[in-house]
């Protein structure tokens, strides 16, 4: 209850911040003409990154016939859906004229990467919803049949959603077919959403963004932060819903290996992304990279690299590090490090334009988010957590039917 209360409070503060932004304009943020994209955009990238977890855990592992991940699929999918919804919300928050949102559909230009982003995000949302729904159908039958105390509205909702599911052979055949198709389809779509999001930066000329590496770099980062998020959720749900029997230490052990692999992969891409331009030190890149390595942004940069990648790798290389509690801490480190990494991708580049920053007031040359921006950004994160929390209260967070099936096939 406290948890939900805190989250709702944060959301309300965020809503008030947004109200101020709607009435006064984006001037309440500290974004100005040079740093014209700030933590709303870095939050957007963060959300899109986390939403890739659905495709990883649910689809890739499923298609690879990995069985231990079955109990984790629903956690992954709800994180994915919630994250993609809030990605859309935070991007509308960043718009200077949100009431003209329909222009995107009425006057949309196919040449614009933003339109590509709108299409893929919308598509990914629907695929993720389907991937939540199909495996949920057998569970709904169990829930409907459940005689324990259940609020009337919940029973009604279960029946509305899936009373037609009888568990016949033909139904299972169709459902399995659908899930397989979805798993296959979600992988390229998931690759697409984060690649297209990375293209919002890579299609510009700016130092730090003008990189051919960006698609792969972003995707590897997304898989890492998604895996980290799942680890955190695993631990929390296991503890609070007493799911030790279903989310066992073996699951943490396996996820630990997945996270270490993904962290090493992301580290590889980071080395490519930063070391090679630093070798050349082209003029526009020079100031930007020096700023990151040893300048204004150095503390945040090394925090993101060390806490987000390097320490987790070391901790997880040891078997003791892959126990539930250390895994939870590592998961938090990965997620927090990733949030700051996204901030480092967006802001420092904007402070190094090609032409000198002058002819503008002094505060245009610096950026630290205002309280409204923090409130709204935290509000969006709280909102995403709220959606996950409410979902877990209404639907079983571990897929009941599939886990049972899994157990039966094993024995």
């Amino acid at each position, binding site marked *: 209850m406290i948890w939900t209360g805190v989250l709702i409070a944060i959301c309300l503060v965020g809503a008030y911040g947004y109200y101020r932004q709607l009435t006064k304009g*984006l*001037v309440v943020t500290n974004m100005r003409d040079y740093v014209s994209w700030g933590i709303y955009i870095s939050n957007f990238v963060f959300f899109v990154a986390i939403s890739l977890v659905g495709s990883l855990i649910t689809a890739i592992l499923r298609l690879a016939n990995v069985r231990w991940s079955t109990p984790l699929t629903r956690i992954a999918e709800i994180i994915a859906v919630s994250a993609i919804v809030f990605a859309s919300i935070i991007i509308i928050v960043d718009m200077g004229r949100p009431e*003209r949102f329909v222009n995107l559909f009425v006057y949309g*230009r196919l*040449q614009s990467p933003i339109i590509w982003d709108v299409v893929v995000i919308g598509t990914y949302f629907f695929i993720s919803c389907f991937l939540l729904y199909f495996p949920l159908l057998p569970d709904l039958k169990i829930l409907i049949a459940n005689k324990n105390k259940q609020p009337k509205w919940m029973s009604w909702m279960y029946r509305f959603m899936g009373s037609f599911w009888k568990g016949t052979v033909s139904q299972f055949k169709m459902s399995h077919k659908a899930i397989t198709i979805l798993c296959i389809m979600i992988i390229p779509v998931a690759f697409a959403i984060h690649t297209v999001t990375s293209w919002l930066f890579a299609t*510009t000329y*700016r130092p730090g963004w003008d990189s051919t590496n960006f698609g792969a770099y972003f995707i590897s980062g997304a898989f890492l932060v998604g895996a980290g998020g799942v680890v955190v959720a695993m631990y929390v749900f296991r503890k609070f819903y007493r799911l030790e029997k279903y989310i066992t230490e073996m699951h943490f052990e396996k996820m630990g290996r997945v996270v270490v692999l993904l962290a090493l992969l992301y580290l590889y891409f980071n080395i490519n992304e930063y070391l090679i331009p630093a070798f050349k030190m082209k003029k526009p890149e020079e100031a930007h990279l020096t700023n990151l390595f040893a300048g204004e942004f150095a503390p945040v940069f090394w925090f993101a690299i060390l806490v987000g990648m390097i320490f987790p790798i070391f901790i997880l290389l040891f078997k003791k590090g892959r126990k539930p509690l250390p895994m939870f801490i590592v998961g938090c480190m990965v997620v927090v490090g990733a949030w700051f990494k996204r901030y480092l991708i967006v802001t420092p580049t904007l402070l190094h334009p090609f032409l000198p920053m002058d*002819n503008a007031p002094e505060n245009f040359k610096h950026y630290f988010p205002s309280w409204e921006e923090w409130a709204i950004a935290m509000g969006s994160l709280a909102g995403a957590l709220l959606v996950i929390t409410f979902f877990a209260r209404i639907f079983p967070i571990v897929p009941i039917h599939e886990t049972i099936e899994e157990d039966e096939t094993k024995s």
Partner: protein
Amino acid sequence: MDKQTSRREFLAAGLLAGLAVGCSDKNPFAPGDDTVKASGEKVKLLSVDGEIIEVDKAFLKPVPDMPQVTNAQERLGIAGKSFVMVIDLSRCKNLRKCQSACNHMHNVHPGQNWIKVHQMKDADHTAPYWQPSTCMHCDSPPCVKVCPVDATFKRQDGIVLIDNNRCIGCRFCMAACPYSTRVFNWEEPAEEDKSLAEKPHDSCESSLPQKKGTVGKCDFCPDMTRMGMLPHCVSACPNGVFMFGDMNEDSVTNGSETFRFSELVKDKAGYRLMEDLGTNPRVYYLPPVSRNFPFENGLENDNDKNAKY
């Protein structure tokens, strides 16, 4: 300055003369008489040789009323024209009259500037110079490529314009522009000065009125060029730094001096900014050579110090 304005008078008079005596010597490159909105009211005046001529009253306005241009026409642009600008860096003394004129005539928010006068020094041993930069109105505009709603668009006369009734404020164009020329209306614009009342409003061509939450930039003053007049920065600069013209006519002028564009750029070794990015800008720069005044600070107008943000 008088020479510039009297030239403008001659142009306007040409319009008037054309209608007054039915003169058939119409300059094919000047806007035809049918572009001015006739009021219907006639007035009698005396010609030099004592003849009485009848003229529509609309022509007597210092700046004749133009008929309303639709949004579709604004998006198409003026046919047959190919606007270009040449900026002579050897003449710029950082007086910033261009900046104050442009800011004033477009109601740019205090503290922001559409024209930026940069203090440049390319390398340790090269010369310092002042570089005014406007929007480059690129022929391969990165800002237009990324706009999701067609709020910024390229016209047939070369101008890249912003429709602030359609802009959703995503600021992708600002990220995409390598010349950092765009500014954003972070809050409600300041109240318009009464002197702007004559300019067309709700028009992409004057960029008035400014709207909160939309983006703005130099527009090459299409409302002025439609009337055959020069953009405000060109008229405002006392040193003749800005030269504006039509590549299809192969000529640029700063109001007092007119040059053949191709000759000027060749003779003075003109160049474009960031040529290797492939944006194909329409603003050419003449290198700061043979400057006959020292490079100094402090001559600029004080008006841009009002940092409201």
